[in-house]
């Protein structure tokens, strides 16, 4: 019997196959697998109030990612601020036991706040070195890192709306954050809580006020302080338009679908209605939304609106040229305006939002963000120690608020508001005590604000229908019916 003949081509093919299979096998071993939820911290952090020397531990052992934070007593640091918050925490005062580090991903716009708090934190905790990075496209990068489970930062920025999507990759902070729950703006904690567990530390909230151009209002004889209802605002818009020969309009009817959704929601949320309620039911046909949409439709029909996309050169030029005079928007708008509209230094003012009916709600939220720690982060205890200081102590917040260029980032941690800082005038806004105004709105925000896990998808869908209405291609009723029908077809989790 002759030896079996193996053709060279066949051998080559076999080698290639074996190589491919072995590589696939090796890579498959690295593929994301169902991640078991790690055991919760074995000990709850000690309540800070009665014992200022007790607090959640600040990362004693960076080598053990699953190690539960302990509540070991720590000596109080001599640098503890004398003007401390009513309940000083040890994280703010006690140096960490073991040396360690933490990597913080803070995108541009947030980094100066986080670095300011980080500097203060490192002065109090010299054993922990914080490294800050500001990657572009941070959400996509973080999502990829969470999926791969490697190259994760210890702390990362997230929008509130991302927590329900990525919560399975985030560290369960329920027990750690529990002692602070009563000091938080209620809805901020609720929207980062999924199935009863809290997965991130709320950062800022977005209290909305109505910004206006002082010079143009003065020229038109409009007193913004007397604009109490949206009907008053409409009348003011007509007056301004006439006084400027038709050049200046009342509002910018936002051109970006995503931003428009948030913006329209702002009007309805003044009366306590969000686009989705906590049962994920779509609320577009409620009287509050109908009223808000009708109002914006009236603005369009009265030729009192302009169309610009948020945060574009054309958007800022419209303000610069006085094409738009009033701007109901979130506090964080003040972060973007001074660098882009230096010429208008002192020309902006702000008042509370008008109400739809006299005595109606004037507090609304728009946007907001949070800081998360990945379940697989190497130094998550250090990350928590930093976040606890930065977000859950008055000293941490004051360090952020006093950062250069700070404007419009309002704490979700209520005790931080108990400081003369909020009485300070803001030069760009003509010396107005804007922090005080934002604070008043923040403290009275409706607790009904809610983002469902499918928010980003729904946002794009709904925003396109709003755009059609702003372009005069759809009526209010069509927007309500069409958006509901499209959501029903595309998002099975949405309750229509």
């Amino acid at each position, binding site marked *: 019997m002759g030896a079996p003949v193996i053709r060279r081509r066949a051998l080559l093919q076999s080698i*290639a196959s074996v190589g*491919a299979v072995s590589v696939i096998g090796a890579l498959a071993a690295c593929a994301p697998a169902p991640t078991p939820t790690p055991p919760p911290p074995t000990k709850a952090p000690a309540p800070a109030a009665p014992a200022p020397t007790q607090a959640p531990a600040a990362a004693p052992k960076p080598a053990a990612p699953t190690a539960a934070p302990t509540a070991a007593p720590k000596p109080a640091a001599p640098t503890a601020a004398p003007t401390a918050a009513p309940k000083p925490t040890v994280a703010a005062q006690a140096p960490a036991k073991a040396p360690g580090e933490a990597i913080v991903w803070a995108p541009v716009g947030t980094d100066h706040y986080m670095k300011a708090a980080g500097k203060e934190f490192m002065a109090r905790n010299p054993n922990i070195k914080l490294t800050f990075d500001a990657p572009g496209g941070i959400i996509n990068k973080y*999502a990829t890192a969470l999926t791969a489970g490697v190259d994760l930062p210890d702390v990362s920025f997230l929008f509130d709306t991302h927590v329900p999507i990525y919560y399975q990759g985030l560290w369960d902070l329920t027990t750690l954050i529990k002692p602070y729950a009563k000091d938080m703006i209620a809805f901020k904690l609720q929207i980062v809580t999924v199935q009863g567990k809290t997965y991130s530390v709320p950062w800022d909230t977005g209290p909305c006020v109505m910004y206006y151009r002082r010079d143009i209002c003065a020229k038109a004889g409009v007193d913004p302080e007397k604009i109490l209802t949206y009907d008053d605002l409409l009348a003011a818009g007509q007056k301004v338009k006439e006084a400027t020969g038709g050049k200046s309009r009342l509002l910018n009817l936002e*051109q970006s679908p995503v931003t428009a959704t948030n913006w329209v929601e702002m009007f309805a949320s003044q009366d306590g209605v969000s686009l989705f309620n906590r049962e994920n039911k779509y609320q577009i046909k409620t009287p509050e939304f109908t009223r808000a949409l009708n109002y914006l439709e009236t603005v369009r029909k009265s030729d009192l609106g302009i169309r610009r996309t948020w945060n574009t050169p054309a958007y800022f030029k419209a303000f610069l040229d006085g094409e738009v005079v009033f701007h109901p928007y979130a506090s964080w708008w003040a972060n973007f305006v001074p660098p882009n509209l230096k010429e208008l230094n002192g020309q902006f003012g702000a008042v509370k939002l008008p109400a739809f009916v006299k005595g109606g709600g004037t507090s609304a939220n728009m946007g907001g963000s949070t800081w998360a720690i990945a379940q697989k982060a190497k130094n998550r205890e250090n990350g928590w120690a930093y976040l606890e200081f930065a977000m859950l102590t008055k000293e941490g917040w004051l360090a952020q608020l006093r950062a250069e260029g700070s404007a419009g980032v309002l704490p979700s941690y209520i005790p931080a508001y108990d400081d003369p800082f909020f009485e300070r005038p803001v030069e760009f806004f003509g010396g107005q005590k804007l922090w005080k105004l934002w604070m008043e709105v923040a403290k009275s925000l409706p607790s009904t604000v809610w983002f469902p896990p499918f928010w980003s*998808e729904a946002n794009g869908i709904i925003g*396109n229908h709003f755009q059609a209405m702003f*372009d005069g291609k759809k009526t209010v009723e069509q927007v309500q019916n069409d958006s509901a029908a499209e959501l029903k077809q*595309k998002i099975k989790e949405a309750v229509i």
Partner: protein
Amino acid sequence: MSTHGAAAAAQRPGRGTWIGRFRAWLGGSYAPYIFLLSWFLAFAAFMAYPIGYALWLSFYSWRGVGPPEPVGLENYVYVLTDVSTFWLSIGNSAYLWAAIVPAQTFGGLILAVVVNGARLRGRGLFRTTFFLPGVISLVVIGVVARIMFERSNGVVNAFLEAVGISPIGWLEDTDWSKPTFALISLWRYTGYTMVLMLAGLQNISIELYEAARVDGAGTVRSFVHITVPLMRRIILFCLIIGTIGCFQMFAEPYLITQGGPQNSSLTAGLYLFNQMGNARLGRASATTFLLLAVMLAVSLLMLRVGRDTSEAKS
């Protein structure tokens, strides 16, 4: 195995062992196979595995973290029945294809013929100038285009107004967004196509044109009967590359309009990105394979239509 190789292998020690026989059977050296194996390993790691994984994922619902949930064909059904977005994006891409690819291909060919002319002075300058947009970063193009085409303050409308034409909502009007992207793409890619065509033109023997001229053919006849037939393969290549580029177009609409207004500039590539942005990774994978099917069908159709029948017969 060459005779020389076999002889060399036969002289090596160990010729009688099975290793020696194996080596001789391979042609006397392991080296070629080791070199080839590295390529196969890289291919498996960076092409075959991701493609296979994406195919697997297209049958699952997964948001990037946590365990994927098997959903069968649900992702494919979702995308195929998504008339208001997926099919709209395919329609937008088809529109852009019709507006861009033929003009870009034949525009590139004509430009190549012009800048290939022996009597043209400053050929190098023209070639560089036409090619230049192709090397500019898409991000820069996106930012500049957004400023230039802006309705109220853009330089394009300022020019139109100066000559008495009403401003156009290039990026704000649903009827104008696609033509605007077609203009931007033509400006950017026609020069690139020209360079490909130029390479093809320079392979055509000048004697063919001289013979045609002797036979009385003018410039147009030479172009139609010599240039176009001999450039068939390059033209076909440009058409296929252009088609794939149109359906994958992402950076321009993402940077300039994010697919708006009202999804009028939502391309198939941007639709795919949005699915990933919404952390619907299974759905994004399904979209990938559906788009692959569409592009494959269109490319095969082009190959079929553009095949060289004379070569096929011979």
